[in-house]
């Protein structure tokens, strides 16, 4: 083999590997266009039956309960319209919080979503802790005000 031919063979192999990789990535892309389903979609039977899928939503406030065995955690994922109870054995990510976003992978077993992986989905807001406290306070006041209006009706 002449050096020139060897170089061309090497490059053709490189391009082939690259094309294969791109093809695999494209197929992953197509498969994961719906990265997760919302609890409403699951309730409407839009999620795949009989195989693992991901559920995304918010961790319902006050729903996180650690079981006595110390490894199992139960919580409820909600999109405010529908909700799904989740059971998970394992380590939760740092940003897993009540009232915050979560994406969890697993399968439905008798109405309970048995999760094999729990990921935190955080939002795109960045602010110092003091500002976050102020926002929280303002929201609480707003809620109180709305509550009064609704009660007055």
């Amino acid at each position, binding site marked *: 083999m002449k050096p020139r031919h060897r170089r061309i063979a090497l490059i053709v192999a490189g391009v082939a590997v*690259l094309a294969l990789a791109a093809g695999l990535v494209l197929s992953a892309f197509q498969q*994961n266009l719906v990265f997760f389903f919302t609890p409403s979609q699951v309730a409407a039977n839009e999620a795949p039956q009989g195989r693992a899928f991901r559920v995304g939503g918010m961790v319902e406030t006050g729903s996180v309960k650690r079981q006595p065995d110390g490894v199992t955690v139960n919580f409820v994922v909600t999109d405010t319209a529908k909700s799904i109870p989740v059971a998970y054995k394992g380590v939760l990510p740092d940003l897993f919080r009540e009232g915050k976003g979560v994406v969890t992978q697993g399968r439905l077993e008798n109405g309970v979503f048995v999760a094999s992986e729990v990921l935190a*989905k955080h939002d795109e807001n*960045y602010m110092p*802790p003091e500002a976050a406290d102020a926002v929280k306070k303002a929201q609480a006041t707003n809620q109180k005000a709305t509550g009064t209006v609704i009660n007055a009706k």
Partner: protein
Amino acid sequence: MPSANLQNESASFNWFKYASPQAFFPLAGAIAPWFAAFAAVLFVVGLYIGFFVAPTDAQQGESYRIIFIHVPAAWMSMVIYLAMAFWAGIGLAFNTRLSGMMASALAPTGAWFTFIALWTGALWGRPTWGTWWVWDARLTSELLLLFLYFGFMALQAAIDDPRRADKAGAVLALVGVINIPIIYFSVQWWNTLHQGSSVSLKSAPTMAATMFTGMMVMVFACWAYAIAAALWRVRCIILERELRTDWVRAYLGKQT
């Protein structure tokens, strides 16, 4: 040599003159160091703001500070691809030699920025989401961008005749442009683990002012760096492709 050229042009600056590699070579050599210097200063200022002025994030603590390099790198990965496809397209349409060289000069820098965006994204995802990588639409399309850069460079390396290499690369670059809006809008069009954009043209950024300032300074630093690197590389490419011309021989003769 470059200073003499520039002085003569001060009255009527003819941009088209610089469409020839021979004329562009000294111009690129004259302005590249300025962009490199800008980049160095802006990196220092941006990192200072990012680490010492910008406050801790309420949600993520200190790990959010990766944003100061992650977002600029991700933006550059897309901007450089658009610039590369633009020059490749110009070269294809008007058959100008320098355009193809510009496209080739931009590709490696774009690939590096794509790599940095993916790498810093993994190191940011692990402490926040709880995973290095997921195959969601945003991450997957950014990985595809890296393969597009690799494909462009491999294709050009595979073809010996530079003009034909430019043409083949241009077709690939232009087809791949479709991936850029897919990356950018993926977080709006589909369900992704990746959060939405903090900065958009339509609304105010959803970040504290000092955080935003630090990030934008880093964005300009990356712009300046990318321009300097591309200009230096286009000078290499000009020398390599025009090695047999009299002016390059004369220029290199003077150097040694």
